[in-house]
């Protein structure tokens, strides 16, 4: 991910949203790192698509940047597919995988 200097504070892990319990394992929406999308842009997209607070969006953006990918949500196939459409509409490298 392209660098941009913003001071960041990681959220308390215990406050992270737990995966939804569903009858089937569901699908993971994953965002992958690339060297072109601006860090602030990725944070903004996460806030817009998932309605997250900036702190949570930054946490996942940094996970993408530092670890190469971040699992954003676990959802039904249809919802996961819709999220991937939205994220790819912003030209982020996002995919869905069976959980």
């Amino acid at each position, binding site marked *: 991910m392209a660098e941009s200097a913003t001071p960041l504070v990681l959220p308390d892990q215990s406050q992270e949203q737990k995966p939804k319990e569903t009858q089937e394992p569901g699908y993971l929406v994953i965002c992958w790192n690339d*060297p*072109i999308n601006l860090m602030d*842009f990725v944070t903004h997209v996460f806030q817009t698509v998932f309605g997250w607070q900036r702190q949570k969006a930054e946490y996942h953006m940094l996970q993408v940047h530092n670890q190469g990918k971040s699992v954003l949500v676990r959802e039904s196939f249809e919802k996961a*597919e819709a999220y991937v459409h939205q994220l790819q509409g*912003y*030209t982020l490298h996002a995919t869905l995988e*069976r959980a």
Partner: protein
Amino acid sequence: MELFKADGQNFIFRVGKREKRLLEEVLQLYPMLSGSYGEISSGPDDGKLGDAQKLLEQALAEQHRANRQELESLLREPTWLKEKAGMHQLTLSLSRMEWLLQILNNIRVGCWVALGAPQDTALHLKDLNEKTIRYFVSMEGTAYFQSVLLKALQRAAL
């Protein structure tokens, strides 16, 4: 380009003459990526993914067509980058800002792909030629415009 005024609904930016030229040249490149750029999944196909991939490609292609039409009509609007006191004024609603960010990022990522998707985006001039320098300038130019828009949105959120 700098934020001049924001009233919660609209954002007004002041744009210099050279910035106006760069912005208009960059926007002409849209869409730089086709609908088939995105992969729905990198995992094994469980039977659902083939159709999902086709659907994604169709959705992105349709989005690009609609965005291109909207972009062309925006560029024809008389208020688009209207000149005022030696500067140009760009007025964008919140939804237009969001839309423009998508447009600019498609161009930025598309230029990067056209440059061979280098891991180090800080390319050297010696690596560029007459054809690729346009992509490099556009890639850097879109980042500049995106940063200004994102800062304005962050300011509005405070």
